[in-house]
Every structure is written in C-alpha cells, then in structure tokens.
C-alpha cells in the first residue's frame, strides 16, 4: 500500500500527466455523442410497459357513437357558423350550449404583452361534477379554438362538446371533468392553468371564479382536419422540456392501437418504419423540441404544474371517423378515472424512439454528463497547470533523493484577482442581451440582432486589448489559463445542473460549446485570426442565424417566439443561451486572442 501511494505521488508529478486532459476531454465528448447514437439500438432501448395497474387501459367497452354522431353534426354546424367571429362572440354562443348540458360555466380574461404584441382573450370553461366524487380530483379536456399553426379546430370543439354531453349521461365518474375552451393554444391554456393553481399575476390574468379539485391529467384535442383520418399524432412535449408521465402516453397508445386499431405517430414522423434511422430521427426530433423548451400545444402549459397532459392530433387519409376519435378520448378518460393516486409509477424522463420503445434517464443521462464533465476536466487541468512554474524555468531535479525528502510540489502563488474579475465581468455582461432580446418590440428585433452580431464579434478583441494595456503588468499566460479555467468550470457546473432539468438543452449547448474546451492562446496573428473565425462560427449569434436559415424561418420570428415563450410560458432557454453559453464563448475568444509572441515576452521581461 505505501509503495502504491508513493508511486501514485510520483505519477502525480510526472509532467506527462498534464498533457493528458485535452485528450480525456475529447474522449468524453466523443463517447457522449457515440452513446447518443447507440440509444436507438434494441440493446439499449426498452419496450414500453404500463406501470400503474389502476389505469387498466383498453379494458372497458366504449359506447360513444350511434346517435352521438347526430349531436356532433349539430354542434359542428353551430361551430361552423362562428368561424371568423370574435372571441367574445364565440364564447357568448358556446356558453349557453355548455350551460344547456347542465354544467356550471365560467369565463376568464387574460392579457399578455410580449415582443411588442398583446395576446389577449377570454377562456370559457365548464365543470362536470362527478356523480361519485367529492370534487377533490379532476380531469381536463382542452379544446383550443386555434391550434399552434393557427388552423381552426373545426372538429375538435364540436367533438369536445359532444363528449361532454355524453359523459354527463354516465354515472361512473369519480373525478370531475373540466372542459376548457381557449381562444389559442399557448396563452389561453397557460393563463387558465396558472390561475387554477393561483400562480398568476392578477394584473394580467384574472382569477378563476369556479374551481374543482387537483388536476390528475389533461387531454387536448387538436382536430382541425376535415374528413376521415388514418392515425393519431400524440404531442407530448411540455414547456422547458418537461414531459408527462410515460404511463399516460402508453395508455393512449394501448387504447388507440390495441382497442381501436388506430396507429399512433410521434414527433411528426408520419411514416415510421421501425428501423434504426427512423428511431434515431424520432429521438433527435424529440430532443430538439425538448431543448428549445417551447410550448408545442395546448397541453404544454399543464406539465410544469405536474399535470400529465398530451395533445391528440388526427392526421392522414383513412377510414376512422370522429366517433373513433371520441372513443379514444373516452377510453383514456375512463383510464384516468380509475387512478387511485397521481401518476407517479412510470418515467418522467425518457426519450421515445417509437410508440413502443423508449430509453429512460439512467441510460441516456451519462451522455450529457460526459459532455458537461469534459469542461470540468479541462477546468481542473488548467488550474493545476496555472500552478506550475512558468515554462522557461527548469524544474528542480532531485530524483536521487528518497521520496520522503523530496521537496513538496510547490504550487506557485496564483494571481486570482484579474481572472476572477474578468470572468465576473463577462458573466454580468450577459444580462444585457438577455434583457434586450426579451424586452424589445418585434420591429426592433432585426436591427437589434444585427447590431448585437457586430458588437459580439468586436467584443473579444476589445476586451483582449483592454487586458494587454490596462493592467500595470501585462496579463501572463497563467492568467489566461485561469480565465479559461474559471469560465469552463462555470460552464460545466451550469450544464450538469441543466442536464438534470432539461437533458436535451444541456446536450445541445454542451456540444455547441465543446470547441471552447480546446482553445488556447494563439501566438501568431494568422493563428489568432483563424481561431477567432472558427470560434465566431460557433458563436450564439451565428448558430442562431444558421439554424434559422436551415429551417427556413426568419431570425426575427425565432427571436419573437423566444420572447413570447419567455413572457407567456416562462421558457428559460434564453437564459441558458445568453447567461451560460454566451459568456463562456466570450471568455474563450478572449483567451484565443491573449497569446503573445515569445520575443515580445522576452523583451518585456529583460
């Protein structure tokens, strides 16, 4: 044992050990990425299963149909009359219909301001009191007038009304059923669910006059398509990448697929062959959506409140009619009605590959953690390196002496003040873009972005210039190492925290920031220019622009959506971009420009 310790101590002082960390951290990144691509294989993903026995999906007969078809046509007729009318007029018309079913109804006003726009409207909702319940639990059926693509929910609203009329006839409900009709798919549900949990700002969103019990689950109907459909698209991404319990998705897959013979599609994969490429594509699309953290449907705002929710979206040309869709919802509601306690058995963190294959957090988290760990490894290595004597000085040689009397590795005193100051300054500067992009009106976003992109390119040279001229003694390579070390330490810390909250966002940011691990002060002007150009290519502004071009949208649209999501849903992705990634990028660019020629160093020292 003592010999082992002694050899470990020897190893610690071996200069070769300091050469290792860049390779270790490169290995971390490569393994992290490779891990991700292994996930869709059968060996690493698992078959889905229902954990919660109480759900009993598909075990009941569904009776929706028959004469309900006529009721549906009547409601549809009424709804078609309302197309093009104002929100208030629609609610004025729908409220008596719902009241006529014998339900209590109420309305709620909301106004949100974001990116110079005002999102205002009025929600209408009704509560069907459970014949066998005590109003302590409720299930929600949401039908928005418009879906996220601004198509009118021409079949969804009548179907929801018909279903409620049908549910009213049954005496088996042990949970209240709440029907929520919102004017849009993002702001309306958000206002309603915020107010339901008393987490709203009363100056923008009015309180709910009528409430029921704890929400146990929610299903949103997005049925804008006319005619018969083939399959159902289940949208499950919540705000900030939170997901509903996997049991809910499994139950719906089970009911629709097993009982009704309707196929389920995920992540806009309209045709899924089940092979590796399609699984990978489904997973990557899921990760991208999760990473962006935007609301993807009327269900999204429920998930942060721990209410498991999905949107059902019929699509394709087939032979299924509205009644089949109604039976899927009926079956799901019967399952949710069976629940004895809140869904908790199954997974909350998962990546779906197809409807019946998934990977759980234990399997995929290591990849993001490895990417985050690469920054921490480099930070520690740079710290150790900054404590070594400068490159020119000869290290004391005393190999002849016994290990017990060798001099202790004297860590050189580090000057922490300047590096800490620089990193703190850059970190605090990041509040500026965050504030500006979230508070500018839409018209100002494009010029603002252009100005920011230019300033962003000029900032590192300016900071670097300040660092060489301002302090009394020029900044040493050790100090640059320390700047990089602290900034990477912060980056690694934030990303590993983020990986527990939003895996995909941490993974995407980590990969985009990965080059920052390997930058080092360049000596010649050409190398500096090349390295800066390369770094600029992975700067937040350029990546934003490139992503917008790739998906064929306007940068302004992207920024507006981000701003709206920030104000309405509380999406925190902008914070990650501007306060985690951007400062690390600036620090990396300053470090690249920090190197000086050897001769210059010598001249100054002599």
């Amino acid at each position: 044992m003592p010999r082992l310790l002694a050899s470990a101590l020897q190893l610690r002082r071996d200069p070769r050990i300091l050469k290792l960390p860049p390779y270790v951290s490169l290995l971390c990144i490569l393994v992290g990425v490779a891990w991700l691509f292994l996930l869709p294989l059968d060996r690493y993903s698992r078959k889905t299963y229902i954990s919660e026995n109480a759900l009993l999906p598909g075990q009941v007969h569904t009776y929706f149909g028959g004469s309900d078809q006529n009721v549906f046509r009547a409601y549809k007729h009424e709804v078609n009359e309302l197309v093009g009318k104002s929100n208030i007029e629609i609610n004025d018309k729908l409220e008596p219909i719902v009241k006529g079913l014998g339900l209590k109804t109420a309305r709620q006003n909301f106004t949100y301001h974001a990116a110079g726009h005002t999102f205002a409207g009025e929600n209408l909702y009704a509560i069907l009191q459970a014949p066998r319940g005590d109003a302590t639990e409720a299930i929600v059926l949401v039908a928005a007038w418009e879906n996220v693509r601004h198509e009118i929910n021409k079949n969804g609203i009548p179907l929801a009304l018909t279903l409620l009329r049908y549910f009213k006839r049954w005496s088996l409900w042990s949970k209240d059923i709440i029907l929520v009709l919102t004017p849009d798919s993002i702001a309306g549900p958000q206002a309603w669910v915020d107010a339901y949990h008393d987490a709203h700002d009363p100056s923008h969103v009015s309180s709910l006059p009528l409430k029921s019990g704890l929400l146990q689950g929610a299903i949103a109907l997005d049925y804008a398509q006319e005619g018969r459909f083939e399959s159902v698209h289940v949208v499950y991404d919540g705000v900030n990448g939170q997901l509903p319990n996997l049991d809910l998705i499994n139950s719906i897959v089970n009911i629709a697929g097993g009982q009704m013979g309707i196929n389920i599609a995920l992540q806009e994969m309209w045709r899924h062959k089940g092979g590796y490429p399609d699984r990978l594509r489904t997973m990557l699309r899921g990760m991208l959506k999760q990473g962006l953290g935007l609301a993807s449907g009327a269900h999204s705002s429920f998930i942060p409140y721990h209410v498991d929710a999905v949107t059902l979206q019929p699509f394709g040309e087939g032979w299924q009619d509205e009644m089949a869709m109604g039976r899927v919802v009926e079956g799901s509601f019967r399952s949710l009605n069976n629940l004895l306690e809140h869904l908790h058995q199954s997974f909350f963190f998962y990546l779906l590959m197809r409807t019946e294959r998934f990977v759980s957090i234990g399997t995929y988290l290591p990849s993001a953690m490895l990417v985050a760990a690469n920054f921490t490894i480099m930070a520690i290595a740079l710290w150790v390196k900054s404590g070594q004597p400068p490159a020119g000085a000869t290290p004391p040689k005393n190999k002849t002496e016994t290990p017990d009397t060798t001099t202790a590795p004297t860590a050189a005193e580090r000057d922490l003040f300047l590096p800490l100051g620089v990193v703190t300054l850059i970190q605090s500067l990041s509040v500026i873009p965050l504030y500006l992009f979230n508070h500018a009106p839409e018209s100002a976003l494009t010029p603002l972005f252009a100005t920011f992109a230019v300033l962003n390119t000029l900032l590192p040279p300016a900071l670097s210039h300040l660092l060489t001229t301002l302090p009394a003694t020029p900044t040493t390579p050790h100090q640059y190492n320390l700047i990089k070390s602290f900034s990477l330490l912060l980056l690694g810390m934030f990303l590993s925290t983020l990986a527990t909250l939003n895996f995909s966002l941490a993974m995407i940011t980590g990969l985009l920031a990965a080059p920052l691990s390997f930058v080092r002060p360049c000596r010649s002007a050409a190398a500096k220019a090349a390295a800066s150009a390369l770094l600029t290519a992975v700067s937040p502004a350029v990546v934003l622009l490139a992503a917008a071009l790739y998906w064929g949208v306007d940068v302004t649209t992207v920024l507006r959506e981000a701003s709206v999501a920030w104000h309405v849903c509380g999406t925190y992705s902008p914070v990650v971009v501007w306060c985690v990634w951007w400062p690390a990028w600036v620090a990396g660019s300053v470090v690249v420009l920090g190197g000086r020629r050897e001769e210059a160093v010598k001249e100054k020292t002599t």
Partner: protein
Amino acid sequence: MDGAKVTPGRTACLYIGAAVLRLVIFTLLPGLPDLLTGRVEISTPVTSFKRLQEGLFLYNHNVSPYDGGVYHQAPLLLPLFSLLPSITRLPIFTYLLYIAVDLLSASALWRIADSGEAGSSALFTSPRREKRWSGLVIAAVFLFNPFTVATCLGRSTSVFTTCAILHAVAKAVSGAPFGAMVAISFASYLSMYPLLLLPPLVLLSYDRQHSGRAIKSAPKFAAICASTVAGVLAALFQLSYLVTGSWEFLPSTYGVQLTLSDLTPNVGLWWYFFIEMFDSFRSFFLAVFWLHLSSYVGGLTVRIRRQPLVALTLILGIFAIFKPYPSISDAALFQAMVPLYRHVFPLMRYTFVSTAVIMYATCLGPAFYYLWIYAGSGNANFFYAITLVWNLGQSLLVCDLLFAVLRDEWEVERPEMVGKEIRQI
C-alpha cells in the same frame, strides 16, 4: 491588495457599497426576499423569517407565540420586531435592521482581522504572518459573499447569532473578556449551539487579557467567565419569562434543537436520518449525534491550544456541517473567518476542489429540490444526495484549513522539514 491603506473614505465606501447593494436588491426585486425566505437552504425551522412573522402575529394578539408549534425562536426577538413598523406596510425598517446587523458583523470581523491574532497568538507566532489581508478585504469578502447577501435578503434570524458570535470573538481578541462573555451569552440565548464555543473563547480571552488587570490563574478566569455567562443567560431567561409569561419557550426553542422534532429538510445531515429512523432508536441516535457534534470542541481546543482563534474557526466550520438545523448562513460565517488565515493558504491543498464542490452543490441543490418538490419527478434522495456533496465540500475546506494550520505549527517545531513532502496517515 495586501498593503492597502485603510482610510476612513475606504471604510465608508465599503459599508455604503454593501448597504446599497442590499437596498437595491430589496427595492428593485421586491419578490426576491420572499422567495429566498421560503428556501430551505436559507430558512430553517429555527431561523425562518416566515415563522417569526407567525410568532409575532400571535404575540401581538396576546396568544402565546409557541402555540401551534410553528415558532421556535428566542422570545426576546418578538418585542424587538414588534417595535418595528409592520413588514407589510413599511418593510424598509426591517430591511434596514438586517443591513445594519450585517454591517455590525463586518465591523467585528474587521477588528478581529486587524488584531493580527490569526497570525500571531500569545503562544504561537507563524513565520508566514506577514502575508495577510487587511481588515478591509476580509470585511469585503464577508459583505459581498453571495451566501451572506442571500441570508440577509432571506431575513433569516441567524444573522443576529452571527453578529453576536463575531462580536464575542472581537471582544475577546481586544482584551475585553467580560464583553466577550456577554456577547456569547446572547448568541447562545438566540441559537443555543454557540454555547459550545465557550471553551476556546475562554482560552482566547485568557490569552489576550490586558497585562494590567490580568487574572493569572486559569481556573479562576474560567470560573469567572462561566459564571458571567450563566448570569447573563439567567437574566435573559428571566426577561423572556416576563415577556411570554411562561417557561414554555424553553422546550419550544432549545427543546426543538435538542430533539429535532421539526423535520423540515435543510442543507444538513440530520433530517434525512431522523425521517428514516424507527422511533425506538430515536433518542439513542439523538444522543449520538449531539455527542458527535460536541466532541470536536474538546479535541480541537486541546490540540490547537496555542491558537484558540483557529479552534473557534474550525468549530464554526464543523457546526455548519453537523448542526441539527444548518443553513447557508453558517457556511457564510465560516467562510468569513477563513480569509483570516491568508498566511497558510499556500499550504492548503484542495482549495480548488473544495470551492468547485461547494459551487456545484450550490447549483445542483435548488435544481434537485425543484425536481423533488415541484416537478415531482425526483424524490427526497435527490436533495439529500446533494446536501451530502455540499457538506463534503465544507468538510474538505475544514480539513484543509486544519492541515495547513498544523503544518504551519509543525514547521516551526521542526525547521529542517520546511518545504518537504509529508504523507498524511
């Protein structure tokens, strides 16, 4: 930085800067103080400002503040806070009180730093003592430490204890044993655990007596100190009895700390153990946990007899880890004392690791608490795991400081070993 000249202007700048920072946060982000007040990392059952409000409400309505089992703090805080205008209408007075307490703590810390006790005590003079930070820097490190600021914003009542402890130490190093004993009595009255600081504090006061009116006999000095503390505590208890009209406050304040009857999660190590524990073992393990906490006092006081301030610092660090209801304010107090040992920093070995661990835990703690309580996708183990990491970081810092101080002493005893590698066994 080391030789910075301290002028009245700089002093004023520091204090005004710290006060303005806190006032700006209080006024510009009015939601933040209430958010921080609710955080388990800042407010424990025995220091929470919310619970103080509850106690205050009951007290002002002539109901015993300890009815309902929410309020577990010292009774004399109630008359103090009922003198202030209501927090809902004029919160500024409460803010100003908390800011003033922070500044008072900083000034005590400043005096401790300027005394030079950390570098050269009565029985030991460190060869490295020249390298130290001025009181200004140390006070600034304390005042701008994010943990201190967060505690102040969260209006945890532990700031009063911190202030009393720092004043006790400051009085002791400036040769005023009576003042030190009165201050430590106040700290013990407020939170009980500072009573354990008494042995090293008595030694510190004994070492730093003014030569003119010094009491030479150590037992006599200790007896006088102990009786002073007992007297002041008795007076405070009597006053509390008069204020609340019953002795109920004793089980509700000190009893709760001794028996850990409130199991609200915090950053410490106790709550999870006692949640998991079968009731039949509870009293046994309570005794073990308390014995463990207090056993450090004797050992450290004896081992580092020559530098009582070091013993005090290390015990404060150990409290921040092993107390029944620790919060980040205890960590802030320990971190305020650590910069006094600037001269042994080069001997410390794990500064980067312990700093990184503490920073990681600071980030991950709230995230895991969110996953457990709000998102419902995690469970209590998540948060407990991160409190283990947090305490690992703190204990690394404590051990590292202890190592550095002992090595410093050792190099004086054995000059031939200066700079040689040693192996810890």
